[in-house]
């Protein structure tokens, strides 16, 4: 604020008195009701529909959680040649159906008896759970910390991401590395979708488009990640010494501006891709073939 460069000393108190209200008797209530602040009993004075965004976010995320939990534990109807559900790829356990050249690698052996989706979904789940956009989304909508700007949160104390377990949010970049691998495998699955049900190449159906739309959004979301932006160039101090990384940083930055949109789009697309495969595999629907 352009009111001077130094604090004018108050004859009654020290200039370094950071919080004059601390000299007052202990406040009976904290936060915006701390003694010394404007005595307004309301927790907020907002008149707009501030609750709408966190509500819609919570409902959207809950819908996905319910759907993906059902599908991850279902352990069935996830492969309809040549399409595999993104929830079940790669399959690292031995109890997968044969995927005709797909990513059923059985690396863990046959001791795993649960749904194979549970193994691989840890990585995209971790990536999205520690994502800077989703953090904002669930801190606001599930934890009300804060529910909206200038709306008082209900918690008595707050330590943010300074302690376990939330300090683990700092490992987002490792999930980003895994997300690159998973996106690569899903791209492989999308390439395999140019086959027909007998494994012959040079064919295409509606499912091929669904898988390609999904993987395009998955890549866009993954590459637009804040950690990616940091790794490709953001960590540099002198862009002028690294022109290629500077250009990459600029491109990722433009995608990063749409990170929220891509987060939601890719969340919906991955569910739609899985649902499409489910409908095919369960016989509810036949894949329209183009050629």
């Amino acid at each position, binding site marked *: *604020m*352009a*009111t001077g460069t130094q604090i004018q000393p108050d004859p009654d108190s020290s200039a370094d*008195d*950071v*919080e*004059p*209200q601390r000299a007052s008797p202990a*406040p009976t209530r*904290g*936060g*915006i009701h701390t*003694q*010394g*602040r*404007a*005595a*307004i009993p309301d927790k*907020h*004075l*907002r*008149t*707009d529909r501030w609750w709408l965004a966190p509500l819609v976010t919570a409902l959207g995320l809950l819908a996905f959680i319910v759907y993906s939990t059902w599908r991850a534990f279902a352990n069935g109807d996830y492969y309809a040649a040549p399409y595999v559900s993104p929830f079940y790829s790669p399959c690292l356990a031995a109890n997968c159906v044969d995927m005709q050249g797909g990513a059923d690698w059985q690396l863990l052996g046959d001791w795993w008896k649960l749904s194979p989706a549970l193994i691989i979904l840890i990585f995209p789940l971790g990536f999205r759970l520690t994502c*800077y956009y989703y*953090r*904002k989304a669930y*801190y*606001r909508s599930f934890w009300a*910390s*804060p529910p909206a*700007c*200038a*709306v*008082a*949160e209900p*918690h008595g*104390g*707050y*330590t*943010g*991401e*300074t302690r376990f377990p*939330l*300090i683990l949010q*700092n*490992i987002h*970049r490792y999930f980003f590395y895994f997300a690159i691998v998973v996106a690569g495998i899903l791209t492989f699955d999308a390439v395999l979708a140019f086959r027909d049900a007998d494994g012959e190449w040079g064919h295409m159906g509606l499912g091929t488009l669904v898988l390609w739309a999904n993987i395009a959004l998955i890549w866009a979301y993954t590459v637009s990640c*804040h950690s990616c*932006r*940091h790794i490709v160039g*953001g*960590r*540099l*101090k*002198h*862009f*002028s010494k690294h022109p290629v990384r*500077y250009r990459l940083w600029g491109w990722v930055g433009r995608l*990063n*501006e749409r990170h929220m949109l891509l987060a939601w789009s890719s969340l919906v697309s991955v569910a739609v891709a899985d649902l499409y495969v489910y409908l095919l595999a369960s016989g509810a629907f036949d894949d329209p073939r183009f050629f």
Partner: protein
Amino acid sequence: MSYTAHFRVWRGDDKSGELRDFDVEVNEGEVVLDIIHRLQATQASDLAVRWNCKAGKCGSCSAEVNGRPRLMCMTRMSVFDESETITVAPMRAFPVVRDLVTDVSFNYTKAREIPSFAPPAGVAPGEYRMMQEDVGRSQEFRKCIECFLCQNTCHVVRDHEENKPVFAGPRFLMRIAELDMHPLDAAEERGLDRKRSAQEEHGLGYCNITKCCTEVCPEHIKITDNALIPLKERAADRKYDPLVWLGNKIRRREG
């Protein structure tokens, strides 16, 4: 076109106060600060309000209009319905002095705690030469007018007074990011690790990137995306990424 608007303006001091009702004339093209001035002129001559430029550049007239932290001089009356009651309150994260004026000295204290620019050795002031692409990021942060709306809306201190001693707030974490990205800042050569100190001394970990600082910034600075998250990533380089640590040890290459 003129009309009469209904205002509720907070009147009081650090002991007590209340929202008081006023009916006041509004003319086409006016902003909230104009109405507050008309109140001073016609109905409440002792109403305290801090203001200077009336152009969104001095950062003085920060307040909460209908509960949203805003500059009164940049809030057009045309965004409200004529029948709408408009509530004007002081910033609620800081101690109030009187009426709409708050004591923002918390921010000056935090500003002093941030180590200033460390001049590079062997280059005198006036001899600094920098490439535009190296200073572009910092220039966005230099648009800050220090209205302290971001500090006011940040729930870390707004809702938790006890965090004030340990949390610098978005404006000053952005200042650390600006200096850490400055191509000529020689803090590291002088033994100051800004990334580590942001985490350990200025409370970067308290930020849960819920973006309210960005939402209220009248200069439209992308505080969270361009300053706080990059700073968190830089702190993660230092503290949570053994690969980066090892790479720096082996190569000793300056980014």
